[in-house]
């Protein structure tokens, strides 16, 4: 098992380098979810990078497909494919490493990039596992902004009604979406109460606290579990934190050097 703190650092460094070298966006949302990905891939998930389709694996559905660099980096540093390959091929003509999540990449269960799709699919996969008496767990990683989508609330209603206790939804609650702050665009509060009312078990954690994340991911519940992870968009690089602009910007040379230094320095 990985040291998850070290893994989170590697994920952030790789996300940063990918967005810098390939002129890509969505770094803020990759940084906010990096610790969650590190804890899942480095600790909580039952998975095997040598056998990405292992039948008994836990399934992870990454709904916020725009922030693909966090998923690709987590997979690369877990051994699904070489980090070098990701760094070279990301967004290049003809590459499977598209800048929204692509299911042709080893370890990826579902292509995502249109928001509000993965939770319902994850609920279907959970239902399949229950009907066939399988033990795997299913994780769906959602952004806060995409909770605007009605499709998510349909899936939330469904999972609660059907007691899909093997399903965990992690909400990367970084408080910022594409064109404003969540509370200004379409407020979610009281979010925990809403999810409880929809029949979910709810845990609220600091989404950057690895021990807290490990604890919630090991919780056994009789209902689907919603993990409301309070996070900071752009977490880890001071000048990117809580800045809407870093949903879009790709770090130019100086910014890259500064950010890399804040993330521990070494070229990944």
């Amino acid at each position, binding site marked *: 098992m990985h040291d998850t703190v070290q893994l989170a650092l590697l994920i952030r460094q790789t996300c940063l380098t990918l967005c810098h070298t390939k002129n*890509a966006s969505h770094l803020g949302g990759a940084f906010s979810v990096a610790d969650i990905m590190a804890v899942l891939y480095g600790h909580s998930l039952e998975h095997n990078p040598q056998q990405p389709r292992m039948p008994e694996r836990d399934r992870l559905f990454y709904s916020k*497909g725009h922030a693909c660099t966090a998923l690709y980096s987590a997979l690369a540093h877990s051994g699904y494919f070489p980090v070098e390959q990701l760094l070279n091929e*990301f*967004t*290049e*003509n*003809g*590459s*499977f*490493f*598209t*800048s*929204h999540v*692509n299911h*042709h990449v080893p370890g990826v269960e579902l*292509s*995502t*990039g*249109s*928001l*509000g799709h993965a939770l319902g699919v994850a609920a279907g996969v959970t239902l399949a596992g229950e009907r066939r008496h399988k033990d795997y767990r299913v994780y769906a990683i959602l952004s806060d*902004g*995409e909770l*605007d*989508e*009605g499709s998510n609330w349909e899936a939330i209603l469904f999972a609660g009604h059907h007691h899909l206790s093997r399903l965990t939804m992690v909400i990367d609650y970084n408080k910022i*979406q*594409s*064109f*404003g702050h969540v509370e200004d*665009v*379409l407020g979610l509060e009281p979010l925990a109460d809403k999810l409880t009312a929809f029949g979910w078990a709810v845990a609220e954690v600091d989404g950057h606290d690895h021990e807290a994340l490990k604890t919630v991911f090991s919780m056994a519940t009789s209902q689907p579990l919603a993990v409301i992870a309070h996070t900071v968009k752009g977490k880890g690089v001071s000048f990117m934190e809580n800045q*809407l602009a870093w*949903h*879009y910007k790709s770090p130019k040379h100086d910014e890259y050097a500064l950010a890399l230094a804040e993330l521990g320095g070494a070229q990944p």
Partner: protein
Amino acid sequence: MRTTFINTLILEARQNPDIFLLCGDLGYSVLEPFASEFPDRFLNVGIAEQNMMQIAAGLALEGYKVFVYSIGNFPTLRCMEQIRYDVCYHNLDVKVVAVGAGYAYGPLSTSHHTTEDLAMLRSIPGMVVTAPSDPKEAEALTRYHCQYAGPGYLRINKAGEPILHKTAISVVAPQILPLLDRQDCETVVISTGAITESALSDIEENSLGWALWSMPFVNPVDRQGLIQLAKQYQTIITLEEHQLNAGAGSAIIETLMDAFASGELQTIPKVHRIAIPNTFQHVAGSQQWLRLKSGLKLSKS
């Protein structure tokens, strides 16, 4: 094209107090000028396109002319039933504006490849489907949608498209527009959308000697204009950055075949359709690279 759209909409909104703009949590560094000048006629409804279309329908029922702005598939395929039933069936003044036509967001992958929208939208009764080839057409079509009251679709590419029309254009719906109005050849290319830029350069750089028309209206089509070209040329090549099935080329074939069947055309030219061969692209690629990979190119044979 998106800045042309928003700048034109701002000019129109100064004249028309009923123009309202909704967005689905998109438009950073594009929509701000509108939002700040007309705060009472702008709203980010959130990442909820189906609801956004319903809100638009409600605003339109009360007399607003509503523009609904988002990326490619989100204000279109994501809310097809709201468009069909709430907007079109009730003949409401709602304009769907999608940025990122075809492969404009190439590297972002299939979620952002807008390649079935023309087919789906042109099948709905009453929906006026438009796709500008250059910024001049984008401006003219935006003005057209501001004048015309009823359901409309404006399919825009993104940014940085060159101007193709050398002279001023006025759009009289649903006219096709000449770009290379040659009489001395047997082949005419009819192209829709921003890929018309490639059509023009393919013809000029390879000295193909063909005529070229832009077809900004995909529904309804310019029936008389197309019949005229069919009488004049022996071969028609259609070009679009969209799936082969049911797109602009299909609309042309349907129109000409119907005219042939009804006796309005005595003979019918060969129609070669160049479009995406009914496939998804599973890899990243720039718009230009994906166009070529899909065979969207004009050549002699």
